[in-house]
C-alpha cells in the first residue's frame, strides 16, 4: 500500500516543522510555498528563543509551552541557537512592582530564574542602563530565523519530503460534497499550473491562513497583528533583554550577530503582503530601546522591518493569547481533508507541528507516535544541498 500523501501549504516555521514530523511518521509529504522559505512572518521574527518569562504572568499556557520547547530546541537544533540566557530588567517603580508576580508566575510555570543585584547585572551586561534596580536571569536565548526553518526543512527533505517553492495555491480541489481533495497551484518560475491530489491538505500559512480557508468558503480563524523591529549596528548585549513589566512596545532588545534588534509594536491589519514601516514606530523603538540600552542612541539603524504575527482567538493585540490552535475543518465546518494550524510562536514551532501531525495522523489512521522531541535535526545546509 502506498503512503498517504499530505500537502503542507506554507514553508514558514509551522509548515517546515509539520513536514518534518509527518515525514518521520511515514507520510509522503509535499510542501508548497509561494516564495522561498520563510519569506513571510517566520523570516522576520526577532529571533527570541522564549523561556516563557514574557508570558508567565498573563498567559501561563503559552509560558509553559515556551519553556518546554526552549529546552527541546536547545537539544535538537543547537546549530542555530545562542543559548546564552536573558535578563528581565527593572528600571522604575512600576517595573519593581511587577517583580513579585513575575517571580511567582515563573515558579508556577517551572521557568528557572536567578535574581541579580544591579552590580551583578551590570557585570554580566555592562551596556544596560546603569539605573537598573533589579534583574532576573532566565533561560531565554536567540536563534537565526531562516536557519531554524532550514534545519527542519532539510531534515524533512532528507526523509523524503518534497518542496515546491515559488508555487502559489490558486484554489482548492474539492469533491462533490465540498471536501478538500488537493490543490491547484501555479509555479512562478515556470509559469505552469498543475493539480496536486492529497489525502489531507494542511494550511500552515500563518497570518495568511484566512486566504486558504476562504478558498473552501470558511471563516478565517486568524487575526494578522504586525509589529515593527529595528536592528542597530552594534551588539551591545550578549543576552536577550526584556523590560520587567507587562509586555508592551519596544521592550525587547536582542543580540543578533553584530547587531541588536529592538522590538516591537502590535496593531491589527487586514492585508499583510506588504506592511510599510512608519516613522513614529521607528522613533518609538529608539526611545524604548534606549531606555534599556542608552548606547542605542548613538548607534545607526541597519535594518527596519515589519512582521505580521498570526494571532488566534478573541480580543486584540497584546491581550490576545500567544498559544496556537489546530482546526480539523471536518469538526469545525464538516469539510473533510483540510486542517488549519495557526497562532503560536517561533519557539513553539515543534509543538505546533506535533499537534498538527497528531490531527492529520488520526484522520489517516496512522498510529506512529511523534518522534521530533528526540530526533536531532540534520545540518540546515541539507535543505539546499539535498536534491530530491
Amino acid at each position, binding site marked *: 500500500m502506498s503512503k498517504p500523501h499530505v500537502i503542507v501549504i506554507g514553508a514558514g516555521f509551522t509548515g517546515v516543522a509539520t513536514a518534518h514530523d509527518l515525514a518521520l511518521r511515514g507520510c509522503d509529504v509535499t510542501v508548497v510555498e509561494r516564495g522561498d522559505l520563510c519569506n513571510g512572518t*517566520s523570516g522576520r521574527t526577532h529571533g527570541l528563543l522564549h523561556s516563557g518569562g514574557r508570558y508567565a504572568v498573563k498567559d501561563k499556557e503559552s509560558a509553559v509551552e515556551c519553556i518546554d520547547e526552549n529546552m527541546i530546541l536547545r537539544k535538537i537544533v543547537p546549530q542555530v541557537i545562542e*543559548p546564552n540566557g536573558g535578563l528581565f530588567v527593572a528600571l522604575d517603580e512600576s517595573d519593581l512592582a511587577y517583580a513579585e508576580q513575575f517571580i511567582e508566575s515563573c515558579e508556577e510555570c517551572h521557568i528557572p530564574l536567578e535574581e541579580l543585584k544591579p552590580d551583578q547585572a551590570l557585570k554580566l551586561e555592562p551596556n544596560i542602563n546603569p539605573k537598573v534596580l533589579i534583574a532576573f536571569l532566565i533561560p531565554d536565548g536567540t536563534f537565526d530565523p531562516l536557519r531554524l526553518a532550514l534545519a527542519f526543512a532539510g531534515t524533512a527533505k532528507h526523509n523524503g519530503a518534497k518542496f515546491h517553492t515559488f508555487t502559489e495555491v490558486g484554489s482548492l480541489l474539492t469533491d462533490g460534497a465540498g471536501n478538500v481533495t488537493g490543490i491547484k497551484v501555479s509555479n512562478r518560475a515556470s509559469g505552469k499550473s498543475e493539480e496536486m491530489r492529497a489525502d489531507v491538505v494542511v494550511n500552515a500559512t500563518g497570518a495568511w491562513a484566512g486566504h486558504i480557508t476562504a478558498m473552501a468558503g470558511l471563516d478565517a480563524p486568524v487575526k494578522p497583528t504586525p509589529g515593527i523591529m529595528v536592528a542597530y549596528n552594534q551588539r551591545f548585549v550578549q543576552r536577550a533583554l526584556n523590560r520587567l513589566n507587562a509586555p508592551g512596545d519596544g521592550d525587547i532588545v536582542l543580540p543578533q550577530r553584530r547587531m541588536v534588534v529592538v522590538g516591537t509594536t502590535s496593531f491589527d491589519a487586514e492585508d499583510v503582503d506588504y506592511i510599510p514601516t512608519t516613522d513614529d514606530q521607528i522613533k518609538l523603538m529608539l526611545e524604548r530601546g534606549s531606555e534599556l540600552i542608552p548606547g542605542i542612541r548613538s548607534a545607526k539603524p541597519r535594518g527596519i522591518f515589519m512582521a505580521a504575527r498570526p494571532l488566534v482567538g478573541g480580543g486584540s493585540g497584546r491581550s490576545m493569547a500567544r498559544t496556537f490552535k489546530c482546526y480539523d475543518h471536518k469538526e469545525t465546518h464538516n469539510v473533510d481533508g483540510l486542517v488549519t494550524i495557526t497562532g503560536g510562536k517561533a519557539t513553539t514551532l515543534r509543538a505546533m507541528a506535533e499537534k498538527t501531525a497528531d490531527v492529520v495522523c488520526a484522520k489517516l489512521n496512522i498510529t506512529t507516535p511523534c518522534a521530533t522531541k528526540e530526533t536531532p535535526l540534520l545540518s540546515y545546509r541539507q535543505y539546499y544541498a539535498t536534491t530530491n
Partner: protein
Amino acid sequence: MTENWKITLRVYRQKENQTSHFDDFQMDVNPDEYVLDAVERAWAFHDRTICFRHACHHSTCGACGMRVNGVEKLTCITLIRDVTRNGATLKVEPLRNFPVVSDLAVDMGVFYRKMEAVGARAVLPVTEAEIEDPPSKWDAEDSQYIRLSDCIECGLCMSACPIMATTPEYLGPAPLAAAQDQGLRRKPELLSVVDCEDGVWRCHSAFECTAVCPSFVEPARRIMNLRVQVVDMRLRKLFGKA
C-alpha cells in the same frame, strides 16, 4: 518630513526556458527605505510573478543578496539613497556564478555543499569568535557562551570573485574563510581540501570578496592567513611535527 523619490526599478527577469530581459517599474520611494523594500513592493503591487529570496530583513539570514547597479549588495540593509538618486534607475540582477532559479532567485545548492564540505561553523564559542571588542583575557566559563558565526552565507563574495567566474570548481572565498576560521592545526583534515589546485592557491588576491562582504568576514584576509597556515602545516610535516 519624509522625502519622496521617483525611480525606475529595473528588474532582471528570466523564466524557465526563456531568454532573459529587464522589466521597468516606475516607483515612488522613500530614499531611506532599503532596496529590498522596493523589490518587495514591485512584487506586492505590480507583478506577482517576480521571484526573489528574502527572509530576515536585517542581515542575519543572507537570503536577499543581489547585484544592485552592478555591485553585490545585501538588499535588506542597502539604503536606496546610497545606490541611486531621484529620477534615476535602480537595476537589480541575480548574483553571478550561481544558477538562476528564476528572476532574482539563485540556487544555493553548490555553494552550501562547499560550506558543508569544509565544515563551516554556524555557531562557535564566543572565546573563539572574532568579536568587536574582546576582553583582554577570557574567563574560563566564557567558553560556554555561543555566537552565531559572522558569515551569513549570502554568497556575495562568490558572485564578486573574478576567479569564481572562470573556474566553478574553485572552492571560493566563503568556504576558504570558513576553513581558516576553524584553523588547520585544529582541523588537519581540511589541509587536503584547501591545499590543492582549486583551493587556497587559486585566489588571485583581487580582494573583491572583502569589498562586498556585508558581514565582517573579510574573506580575502582570511585566505591570505590560510596560506600561512598551509605553509606552517607543510613545515611541521617536514620536521615530523604534524
